[in-house]
Structure formats: structure tokens, C-alpha cells
């Protein structure tokens, strides 16, 4: 397992690693469905989504989770430095059909939540919101450091 080029000695708990904005269109959900093999129609069929009592087409939780962690991999340099990553999905992300314009905009921020100098890992805590409301809760990635 490779590690990030960043040195753990240069970090402290509470340090912000950056922010990222994820603009989501209906086409993004179709693309994610194809790439992941998750073709559940609640992610692309408005009529079907409403029939099963959802507010409309919603993003795959795994799309949001997968896109949010890019803040961490960009910061770490090597994607494989992320040794573990987990989250709870608390609120759906409805994606409006706006003819190619973003139907939802998700904001991601990351801070150093914990450091383990023996294991040489940093825990990055992500805050992932849609219109100010958290959509992922306890989104945490453990990163192996130099």
C-alpha cells in the first residue's frame, strides 16, 4: 500500500485540507450508473422514483460518496493512500432535470480530524452538504502518510 507524500509532522488536528464543489446533472447519474453497474431506476427514472415515494430522481449515495473523497485523494496525491473510508447516508440528494444545467450542487470541506503518529495515518473528516444540510454523516477517510 502506497502512502501520501505529505508528512504527518506538518499536520495538526483541525487543519483544513480544502473545499470542493460537486455540480450534478442527470447525465452524471446515468454515467455513474453505467460505470458502477447500479441501474436502480430511482437514479434515472422520475416516474419510477415518485411511484416508490421518493421526491424525484435522487443521486446514488455512492456517487456522492465517491465524488466527495476526491478532495482527499487530490490532497494526498496517491489515491491508494486512502486506506479506509466510510460514511452514513442521511438525506437523499434530489437532482432536478434542468436540461444539462446542474440539478444539485453539493459542497465538500475536509479537515484533519485525528492524527496517529505511530500508525502514520491522518483521519480526514468530510462535511458534505446540499443547500446547507448534511447529506453524508461521519464521512471519514483514513490516509497513510509519509
Amino acid at each position, binding site marked *: *500500500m502506497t502512502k501520501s507524500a505529505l508528512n504527518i509532522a506538518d499536520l495538526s488536528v483541525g487543519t483544513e485540507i480544502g473545499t470542493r464543489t460537486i455540480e450534478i446533472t442527470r447525465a452524471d447519474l446515468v454515467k455513474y450508473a*453505467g460505470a458502477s453497474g447500479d441501474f436502480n431506476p430511482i437514479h434515472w427514472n422520475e416516474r419510477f422514483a415518485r411511484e416508490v415515494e421518493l421526491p424525484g430522481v435522487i443521486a446514488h449515495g*455512492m456517487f456522492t460518496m465517491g465524488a466527495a473523497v*476526491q478532495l482527499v485523494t487530490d490532497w494526498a496525491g496517491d489515491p491508494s493512500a486512502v486506506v*479506509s473510508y*466510510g*460514511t452514513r*447516508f442521511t438525506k437523499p440528494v434530489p437532482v432536478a432535470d434542468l436540461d444539462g444545467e446542474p440539478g444539485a450542487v453539493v459542497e465538500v470541506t475536509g479537515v484533519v480530524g485525528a492524527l496517529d503518529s505511530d500508525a502514520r495515518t491522518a483521519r480526514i473528516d468530510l462535511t458534505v452538504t446540499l443547500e446547507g444540510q448534511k447529506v453524508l454523516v461521519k464521512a471519514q477517510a483514513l490516509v497513510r502518510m509519509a
Partner: protein
Amino acid sequence: MTINPELQGRSYPSNEIYSVGRESIRDFARAVKAGNSAHFDVAAARELGHADLVAPPTYAIIVAQRADALLINDPDSGIDFTRVVHAEQRFTHHRAIVAGDELVAELHVDGVRGMGGGAMITTRAEISTVAGESVATTVSAILVRGEGQ
């Protein structure tokens, strides 16, 4: 339909091999809006010490959800897939997934808990290479919504 309470403790052995290809890694990386060159450019991946293109941190979900499908599509499980909501997900990587890997997964049903008219089901996929090398462990919690949930 009601969830079969005897699912807990059940395992589903891997019934297919997932061959990780370069284009699959590139497609998945684009789909999650990943920009790291190690997902796209073999030379960049090798510079970081990898044998080939590296998969993004959530790529293992492809293999995990194929394994989950064994349970969800099992007529004996009582799960209506149209009422399944993803509640929780965790990945633990034992080593990076790279293009060229041949992966298999064994699914374990670790928990079944009734919630109103529905149920919360926790599954764990142990992902390894066909040669038996451990690659990743994924844990998913899915909520099967009952009527009106």
C-alpha cells in the same frame, strides 16, 4: 413482503470473477469526477509505484454490489429491491486495486434488524484476488423500507 429473519449469518460464495480493466477504471474515475492522473495514465500510476492504473477509493463497490445482488435477488430473502435505500458504507483497503486484477467476493450477512415495517441489513464483502490475496473489505448497511416508510 417481509424480510426473512434467518438471513443473519448466511454467506454467499463468489460465483463470478470480476476482471478489472483500464477502461473500467477510467470510466469509474470520470463518473465520480476524479482527476488524479494515476486513474488515467499508466506512466503516472507507475511513477507512484503501481503496476498499472489505480482504482479510485470507492471502486470496490462494483464488486461489492454484485455480491450484494446475490442476497437481494435471492427469492428466499424477501427483499424488494425497489424499496432498498443505502444507509451506510465502509471500505477498508488491504492493498490498492489496479488494472489487471482478477477479483472475487464472498458476501456475509452480518446483521438483520427489524425497523418499523422494514429492516436494516448489514452485509460484508470480503474481496480477494482469484489467487486468494486479500484486497478489500466492504461493509454496507441497506434499509429495506416498509410500506409508508
